[in-house]
């Protein structure tokens, strides 16, 4: 049994490192992204082997799903600037001129001591882990949820998650502050008109898949209290549904006016800050939830956060649209 498990891990790691190497050094950009998506999915399998299903969910939804879609859309826009983008589509010339070779060797030589230092540092760690699992289990009952990861994310270290939700909002504000990219209008049309009309197969796929995605998101949000799941995973699955609608050509950004989109994106952070301020006044400590109804407070917080995360990630995907000017 352990031999099989050991074999499984070995093959998984080999595949992971091989994919990473190929993704970073492939000849053309498109295969780099395809390999990176495969790397993300293999990474989710690694999280499963490390008994971290919460992270596997997050990695599958965000790491491989949304990041893959983001990268593909970015590559399409990069190619959309065909005219003036020099190192563009097809097979990009492999860096074989002299100074590129020199840089490669130089950086390889420089990084060897870094690698050995890190390996030495990691291997010098004592044999058994010294973690906080004891403290977590001791206080799990008072946290209002039974899934330890959700307890850490939304109660013990809720302040991290508060700042986390603002990182997402900041990314959205930053992208909208850079103004819409002039040419993204033309790219959207290429996808729809020139080559494929809105094919009925895609529409049926969207009609069937989007409701399932939304149900799965609600399920993940609910199950987060006692099993792997939670706000981030649910939000990213919901964002995948919005991305699917955007890809199928639904004019999402016209449905939601700029202000409504902003209010939705801001809902999570605002609820988080107001709950933090209220708990400071009522309970005497920032983000302190009274044990008896900590569960319901966390669920409320997660629901609003999932909504905001979904809207923000979808807006990050469409990039550049939705501001007032």
């Amino acid at each position: 049994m352990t031999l099989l498990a050991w074999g499984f891990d070995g093959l998984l790691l080999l595949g992971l490192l091989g994919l990473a190497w190929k993704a970073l050094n492939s000849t053309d950009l498109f295969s780099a992204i395809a390999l990176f998506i495969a790397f993300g999915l293999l990474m989710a399998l690694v999280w499963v082997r490390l008994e971290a299903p919460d992270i596997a969910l997050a990695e599958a939804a965000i790491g491989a799903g949304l990041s893959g879609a983001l990268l593909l859309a970015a590559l399409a826009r990069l190619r959309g600037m065909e005219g003036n983008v020099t190192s563009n589509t097809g097979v990009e010339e492999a860096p074989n001129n002299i100074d590129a070779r020199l840089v490669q060797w130089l950086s390889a030589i420089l990084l060897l001591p870094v690698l050995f230092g890190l390996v030495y540092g990691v291997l010098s760690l004592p044999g058994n882990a010294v973690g906080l699992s004891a403290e977590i289990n001791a206080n799990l009952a008072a946290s209002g949820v039974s899934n330890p990861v959700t307890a850490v994310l939304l109660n013990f270290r809720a302040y991290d998650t508060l700042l986390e939700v603002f990182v997402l909002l900041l990314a959205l504000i930053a992208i909208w502050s850079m103004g819409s990219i002039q040419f993204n209008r033309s790219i959207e049309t290429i996808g729809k008109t020139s080559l494929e009309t809105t094919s009925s197969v895609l529409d049926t796929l969207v009609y069937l898949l989007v409701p399932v995605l939304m149900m799965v998101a609600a399920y993940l949000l609910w199950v987060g209290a006692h099993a792997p799941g939670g706000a981030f995973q649910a939000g990213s699955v919901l964002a995948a549904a919005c991305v699917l609608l955007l890809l199928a050509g639904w004019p999402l950004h016209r449905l939601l006016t700029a202000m409504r989109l902003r209010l939705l994106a801001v809902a999570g952070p605002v609820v988080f800050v107001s709950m933090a301020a209220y708990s400071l006044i009522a309970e005497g400590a920032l983000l302190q939830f009274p044990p008896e109804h900590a569960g319901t407070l966390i669920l409320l917080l997660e629901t609003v956060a999932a909504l905001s995360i979904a809207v923000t990630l979808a807006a990050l995907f469409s990039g550049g649209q939705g501001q007032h000017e």
Partner: protein
Amino acid sequence: MIAVIDLFSVLLLIAGAVFFLAGTLGLLRFPDVYTRLHALTKADNVGLGLIIAGLALQAESWAVAGKLVLIWLLVLLAGASVSYLVANGALKRGIRPWKS
């Protein structure tokens, strides 16, 4: 009686594995996109169906078995539509089907 169910599970799992092998061999050996697409989505989906059937027998509750079947239906739906989209796109982009 228990052994019979286990026996069935074993057979189903082995069959599923064989179909997966066929799917992957098809993916590697076939000459053009369309045949690879065909091999991948058809063989793998059947393989997955067999494995899910094998696992459903072992499942402790109907709910779990139901979830397994739901996953299979979703994969079928996704596989079918994506293979059509890819094939349609490939044809439009001028990738000619392979002729011996």
